[in-house]
């Protein structure tokens, strides 16, 4: 009996020690990790979309509560004017969820760029959505308040050959993003003032 | 040696030699000294036969106390030495040398014991004829563990080049007939099956027993294959035909039995094929126990260093290291091989060419078997790769591209395993 108690005590103490240690380290590194993830996972897409901006959009970011979730917005300053934000939408591709970054100019509600951040599409086919610049470039200049569709569905986006599902998924993602934009535009406009 | 044919797709066709290409028949004069080999291991303490003992031709000689193992003297003379003889796998034999006297006397113990062929008893056959030419397996009939119910008389020769049985069938068919009736009387077994090659069919059927034809190519006349192809009974792996009640006996042995009862005298000459270096064959008859060197001398054969003397056929015989090795009751051939004709045994590994697998009459996967044997994994070889199914025809070694001594590996593996099992049995 004593032995069993000892076992339980030791295991409990050990576990709580471990939990405490980890919680502490987690607390200490959370900010840093988040920043690193943004830099390396979303960074390339954001830089691409907000090409030519004069600030570091990853530093200049803000969060807005959208229902239960917090969404991050990255501010791009062009010609001294903070009029552009990039944020994430989610689409469903062939191999699961795809994350995409959409940049919108809040002055004229137009998409200035789009890039795929995370995906698990077939290498060489669906993955072209991320690697081949032709596809994302089609989204430039589209209105950020309307849903977007591929040509077979009556839209104006040329699907990637052999990867219709992926292309459709990207469009769903962009549409998701436009809906977020529509929903949160007032808050965005308000927050973005701080960067002027 | 028969070369591989150009068309290697087919299996090698090794035809049994026929008597027609063994023309000359030569009688070898009795030597000054002959040597009889007894199967009993040499044991000085129990020795019954004394040096200087006088023996007569056809006399039964009991060698050891408390043993019914005997030899039959093929000459008249005096025992000059009794010594140990070591054969394959270190097996010990007793060699009894007899100095031949000038006058020949015939022993009459058999005559008085045997009586006429009508009164032949198993006892007489067993007590006097185990050492007759052709090695009649007389002990088998009274072996309680075997319960023999069928006798197969093999008129075809089992190895290549040999023509002893063919000769006996050709020249002494009456003796065979007589021998069969004696066997029937003595053993009370009426199920006699004759096996003959195509050319012998006519002659053998004259005996009046059921005759079955055996294929002309090696190894069809080996007991296991006769069992499978003619009797339609498969001998379980690791067993012999006698274990399932079938006794094989050669035509020569049957003739020996027939002759013995006919003449009242145990036959003492052995007929065998002698193959010279150039491949020419001759049929030779000599007293059992005649040293090979005397035969070579009589036939003007000279031997050089590194030549090879083979007792028995080219596929299953065994080579000897001394020219003094005597003719034994089962010596069906003596082959002299020039040193340049000896196939080289190499230490090359198996190349997995699969020739052996295709040639094996026992369906053994020889390529894996030999790998295991080479590594000394005998137990696994027996468990997984059918070591005990081997019927010892030697064809795998014959076709082996690497020149591996596969047959030898198999024999020594069986020997080692047998030894290990015996040791286990005695210890446990």
């Amino acid at each position, binding site marked *: 009996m004593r032995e069993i108690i000892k076992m339980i005590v030791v295991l409990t103490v050990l576990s709580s020690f471990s939990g405490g240690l980890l919680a502490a380290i987690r607390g200490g590194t959370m900010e840093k990790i988040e920043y690193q993830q943004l830099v390396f996972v979303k960074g390339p897409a954001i830089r691409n979309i907000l090409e030519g901006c004069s600030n570091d959009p990853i530093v200049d970011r803000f969060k807005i509560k959208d229902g239960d979730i917090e969404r991050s917005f990255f501010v791009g300053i062009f010609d001294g004017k903070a009029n552009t934000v990039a944020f994430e939408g989610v689409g469903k591709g062939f191999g699961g969820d795809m994350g995409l970054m959409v940049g919108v100019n809040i002055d004229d509600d137009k998409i200035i760029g789009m890039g795929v951040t995370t995906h698990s599409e077939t290498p060489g086919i669906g993955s072209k959505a991320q690697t081949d610049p032709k596809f994302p470039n089609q989204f430039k200049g589209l209105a950020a308040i309307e849903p977007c569709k591929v040509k077979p569905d009556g839209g104006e986006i040329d699907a990637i050959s052999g990867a219709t599902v992926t292309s459709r998924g990207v469009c769903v993602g962009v549409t998701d993003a436009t809906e977020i934009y529509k929903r949160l535009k007032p808050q965005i406009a308000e927050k973005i003032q701080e960067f002027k | 040696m028969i070369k591989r044919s150009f068309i*290697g797709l087919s299996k090698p066709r090794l035809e049994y030699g026929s008597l027609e290409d063994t023309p000359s028949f030569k009688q070898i004069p009795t030597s000054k000294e002959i040597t009889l080999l007894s199967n009993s291991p040499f044991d000085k303490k129990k020795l019954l036969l004394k040096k200087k003992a006088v023996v007569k031709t056809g006399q039964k000689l009991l060698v050891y106390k408390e043993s019914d193992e005997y030899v039959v003297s093929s000459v008249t003379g005096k025992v000059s030495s009794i010594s140990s003889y070591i054969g394959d796998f270190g097996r010990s034999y007793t060699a009894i040398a007899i100095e031949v006297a000038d006058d020949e006397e015939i022993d009459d113990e058999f005559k008085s014991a045997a009586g006429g062929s009508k009164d032949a008893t198993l006892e007489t056959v067993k007590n006097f004829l185990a050492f007759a030419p052709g090695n009649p397996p007389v002990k088998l009939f009274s072996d309680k563990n075997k319960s023999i119910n069928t006798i197969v008389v093999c008129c075809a020769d089992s190895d290549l080049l040999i023509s002893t049985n063919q000769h006996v069938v050709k020249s002494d068919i009456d003796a065979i007939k007589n021998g069969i009736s004696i066997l029937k009387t003595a053993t009370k077994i009426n199920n006699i099956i004759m096996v003959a090659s195509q050319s012998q069919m006519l002659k053998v059927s004259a005996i009046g027993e059921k005759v079955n034809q055996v294929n002309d190519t090696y190894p069809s006349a080996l007991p296991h294959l006769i069992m499978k192809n003619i009797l339609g009974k498969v001998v379980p792996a690791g067993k012999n035909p006698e274990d399932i009640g079938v006794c094989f006996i050669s035509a020569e042995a049957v003739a020996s039995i027939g002759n013995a009862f006919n003449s009242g005298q145990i036959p003492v000459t052995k007929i065998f094929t002698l193959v010279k270096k150039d491949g020419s064959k001759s049929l030779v008859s000599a007293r059992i126990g005649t040293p090979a060197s005397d035969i070579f001398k009589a036939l003007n054969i000279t031997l050089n260093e590194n030549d090879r003397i083979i007792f028995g056929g080219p596929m299953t015989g065994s080579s000897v290291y001394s020219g*003094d090795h005597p003719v034994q009751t089962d010596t069906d051939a003596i082959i002299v091989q020039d040193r340049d004709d000896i196939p080289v045994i190499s230490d090359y590994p198996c190349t997995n060419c*699969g020739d052996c697998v295709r040639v094996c009459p026992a*369906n053994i996967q020889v390529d894996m078997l030999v790998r295991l044997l080479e590594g000394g994994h005998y137990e696994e070889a027996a468990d997984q790769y059918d070591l005990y199914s081997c019927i010892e025809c030697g064809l795998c070694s*014959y076709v082996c*591209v690497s020149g591996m001594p596969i047959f030898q590996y198999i024999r020594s593996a069986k020997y080692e395993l047998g030894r290990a099992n015996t040791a286990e049995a005695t210890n446990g």
Partner: protein
Amino acid sequence: MVDNNMVDTNKFIVSHAPFWHDGSKISTRNYNIALAALPAILLGIIFYGMPAVGVISLSISSAIIWEFVFRRVTKRSNTIGDGSAAIIGMLFGMLLPATAPWWLVILGTFVAVVIGKQIYGGIGANPFNPVVVAIAILMISWKDLFDFNEALMNYDFDFAMVYPLAALKHFGVSAVDSFNAGDLLMGKQSGGIGSTFGLGLIAGGIYLIIRGIIRWEIALSFLAGVFITALIFNMTDSARYAGPVIHLFAGYTLIGAFFLATEDSSSPVNFIPMLIYGVGAGFLTVLIRNIGVYVDGVIFAILIMNLTSPLLDKIKPKAIGKAA
């Protein structure tokens, strides 16, 4: 035994039965394989001239040298006399384009002879065909050197110098319409030095089968596997998948069937396993060509089947007297 015969003084060779041997030798086998491959090599040399001679001779000699060096370094007996290193070098050279650079040849024979064969203990022990291993390793490393269209660009012949399988892969069935069986058999296609002359390879293969040096079961079932699989693909969608003729006579199919898949040590020896092995390799070949990423599937198909060979060989006939 006191006889003092002159024979007595001689020492005789004692060994064990059988005392006959059919005279077959590893070296004879290998020289026959070389002989069988000769027609295909000769046509390659006629087509591609000196560079082909260079590649083949460098390949053979370097293979022999690697074997010699390795055996020397590991203090083992010298085995170059059995010709197996030479055969490995020769077959390896036959698969290469005539323009292969010297370092590729030397590295390839090193991989084949040392990694593919010698480290397993030499002849008979290698679980994979050494030549196939070497080609596979080099092919995944230097894809462009094995792109026959690109490699042989500078040659000009009176026929379309196109690698049929690459055309098939990249441009579809219509791109290979111009090939007919006769031209393909006569080597009027782009490919390895010794792998394009179909007729020569078939003749060599038949010679080897008749001589009993390669197992006909493997070679024929390989071709049957290719034929049937290609036919089935072709029937399901003839616009996407080419018919059996192209698959049989283009790429490495013929050299694979007669010279690569039949390599002794890496293939099964029992009858049914040999058939499964051959058909499996043929099936995988077409499968890789049609839906895999590689232009030609022979190499990887053989590798996969090599891998299954020990397992396949467990399907064996019942030995005599073995309890069921």
